[in-house]
């Protein structure tokens, strides 16, 4: 019975993994990068001479902008970049939900207001959308739904993977056997990665299902549970439920007054921006966004204040002042975003995201390797099946296309910034050209050759990031620049480039010296090799425990 269950779930694991592995690779790789999208955004933006302006001018700016553009009633005043001198004091607003180029109003020294469309920078937006849609073009909702469905399968893959692993968990835990049996090594690596980061994966998978499919779930709940009246339930929970629409003009308090009000309410809350709604009317409100390191919050929390009288309207989204349901759901969000615990958690999530990408990559490798064994046992000439070859090529093309495409897009951003009109579109264009080019290349050349070549290409694309900064530092005449405060971006990219280069070398060695019946070998005429495994000539060398060939976890 038990071995039968395991055999069954091994199949469940294989199928769910194969169906979703490549989508999840892109989501995880881009998701890891989203942890640092703000520094990346700043890395491609030329340092502008910002006249540090105290918040004192904010009231004047709002009044002048209201006079110039009375139809703009919803806008945001960012506090963080102003106080740190990174951006001028300005009001911003967007015309769409996700708009790469918001409008901005700034105050000139003579007291007049300039309204301008901001440069669409948006490498941060690209990384974010890539994370949410896996790069599926078209409407955001479609891509999000696809990744939502992939995440649902990913939950099933996690459960089935744990079931398969359980019997040998104690025996094989944290064992990495680097031996002649390459499949064994990949399996150990896959298991260690999976088990060590299991809590992270469960949290990410379940929350990603919700992010991707919440519309469908809400629709079903509305029909079945609320008898079509969910809207009233939602409206009754809305922070704005007590605010009556009233377009009569009224004078708003100064921004400082809101900050004082919030400080009095909760001294530990650090405001980052003020979001106005229906500004200048009697129903005007302001959401004071910010964070409080002591609590789990959705990226940021907010408190809703009346903009005319400064009264506290709602604290359901304010860290430490939420009701039990709201604070529980906020915790779910925080656990997905890694928006707690400061820099330690940020780096941990970055590394766990990369490890997750590696988990899906090794999963595909295992499938390929196990197919190969089946074929060998079947006897006859070892010719790799079409599915094995295609999956090998697809894995190489998609994974390295994503890695190389992102690096190219980031590096090119610094060169193109200021030269082109729509930098955001260029970012996407470069990403897609590199990504699709890598896929086509992988299928044309076969996984073995393309694996090596695309690894070198990805290493070069990643090395272009620090190289661009270095060039900007050595030859400022080129129009490039180096930002000393952002050397972390360059160092991480350099480390990535070195890692990719060493993988390229290992892959090339395996293609030459590895077993020639593998999809990863360049020698044989009908087969195609791959990468990043040490040569199988390696001595039998158990790292942490005696080698066990009787494990039940063989795929």
């Amino acid at each position, binding site marked *: *019975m038990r071995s*039968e*269950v395991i055999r*069954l*779930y091994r*199949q*469940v694991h294989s199928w769910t993994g194969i169906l979703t592995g490549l989508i999840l690779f892109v989501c995880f790789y881009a998701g890891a990068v989203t942890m640092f999208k703000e520094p990346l955004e700043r890395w491609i933006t030329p340092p502008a001479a910002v006249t540090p302006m105290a918040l004192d001018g904010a009231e004047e700016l709002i009044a002048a902008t209201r006079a110039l553009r009375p139809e703009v009633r919803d806008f945001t005043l960012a506090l963080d970049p102003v106080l740190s001198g990174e951006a001028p004091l300005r009001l911003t607003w967007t015309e769409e939900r996700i708009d790469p180029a918001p409008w901005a109003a700034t105050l000139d020294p003579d007291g007049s207001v300039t309204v301008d469309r901001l440069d669409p920078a948006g490498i941060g937006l690209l990384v974010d959308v890539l994370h949410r849609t896996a790069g599926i073009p078209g409407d955001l909702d479609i891509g999000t739904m696809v990744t939502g469905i992939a995440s*649902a399968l990913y*939950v*099933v893959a996690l*459960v*089935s993977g744990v079931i398969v692993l359980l019997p040998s968990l104690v025996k094989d835990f944290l064992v990495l056997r680097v031996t002649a049996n390459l499949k064994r090594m990949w399996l150990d690596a896959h298991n260690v990665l999976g088990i060590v980061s299991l809590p992270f994966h469960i949290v990410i998978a*379940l929350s990603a*299902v*919700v992010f991707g*499919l*919440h519309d469908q*779930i*809400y629709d*079903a*709940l509305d029909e*079945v*549970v*609320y*008898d079509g*009246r*969910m809207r*009233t*339930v*939602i409206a*009754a*929970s809305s922070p704005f439920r007590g605010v009556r629409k009233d377009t009569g003009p009224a004078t708003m308090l100064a921004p400082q007054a809101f900050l004082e009000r919030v400080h009095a309410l909760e001294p530990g809350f650090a405001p980052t921006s003020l979001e106005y709604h229906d500004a200048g009317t009697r129903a005007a409100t302001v959401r004071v966004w910010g964070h409080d390191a002591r609590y789990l919050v959705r990226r940021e929390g907010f408190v809703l204040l009346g903009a005319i009288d400064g009264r506290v309207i709602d604290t*359901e989204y304010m860290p430490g002042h939420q*009701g039990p*349901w*709201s604070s*529980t*759901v906020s915790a*779910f969000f925080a656990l997905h975003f890694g928006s707690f615990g400061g820099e330690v958690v940020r780096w941990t999530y970055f590394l766990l995201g990369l490890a997750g990408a590696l988990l899906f990559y090794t999963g595909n490798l295992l499938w390929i390797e196990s197919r190969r064994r089946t074929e060998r046992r079947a006897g006859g000439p070892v010719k790799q099946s079409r599915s094995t070859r295609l999956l090998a090529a697809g894995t190489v093309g998609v994974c390295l296309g994503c890695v190389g495409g992102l690096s190219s897009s980031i590096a090119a951003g610094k060169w193109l910034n200021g030269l082109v009109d729509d930098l955001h579109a260029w970012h996407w264009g470069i990403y897609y050209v590199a990504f699709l080019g890598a896929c086509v290349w992988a299928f044309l050349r076969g996984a073995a050759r393309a694996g090596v070549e695309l690894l070198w290409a990805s290493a070069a694309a990643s090395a272009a990031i620090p190289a661009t900064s270095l060039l900007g530092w050595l030859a400022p005449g080129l129009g490039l620049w180096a930002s000393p405060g952002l050397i972390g971006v360059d160092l991480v990219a350099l480390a990535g480039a070195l890692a990719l280069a060493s993988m390229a070398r290992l892959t090339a060695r395996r293609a030459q010296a590895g077993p020639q019946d593998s999809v990863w070998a360049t020698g044989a005429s009908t087969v195609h090799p791959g990468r990043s495994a040490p040569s199988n000539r390696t001595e039998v060398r158990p790292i942490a425990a005696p080698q066990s060939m009787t494990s039940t976890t063989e795929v």
Partner: protein
Amino acid sequence: MTSRHSVERPRAAIRPDWWSKSCAGTLLGFTLAIALSGLFTWFGPGGPAAANKFQFTMWIVAPLWLGVVSFCFLFRSGLRAWLWLGGANLVAYALLLAGRGPLPH
């Protein structure tokens, strides 16, 4: 694929029945998760109108649904999966529809 004769052994083996079980788990698992979430909405702490509880009850659909999908392969056959999950759905929906009152306001 399990061959016929193995099914007839005493303590019959688990038939894979991939398509049948997957569909049962995905469809009936989803409807069951919705109903269970609904039961929690109406009879769990706070009742249906507690502030922002609707978000929490939406979140719990995902683990309930995918839990059913994950474990539905343990049913001895696809038919059993449909019958058991169908029965669970009937019970859950009967309770929900019987106990669901009018929404406040």
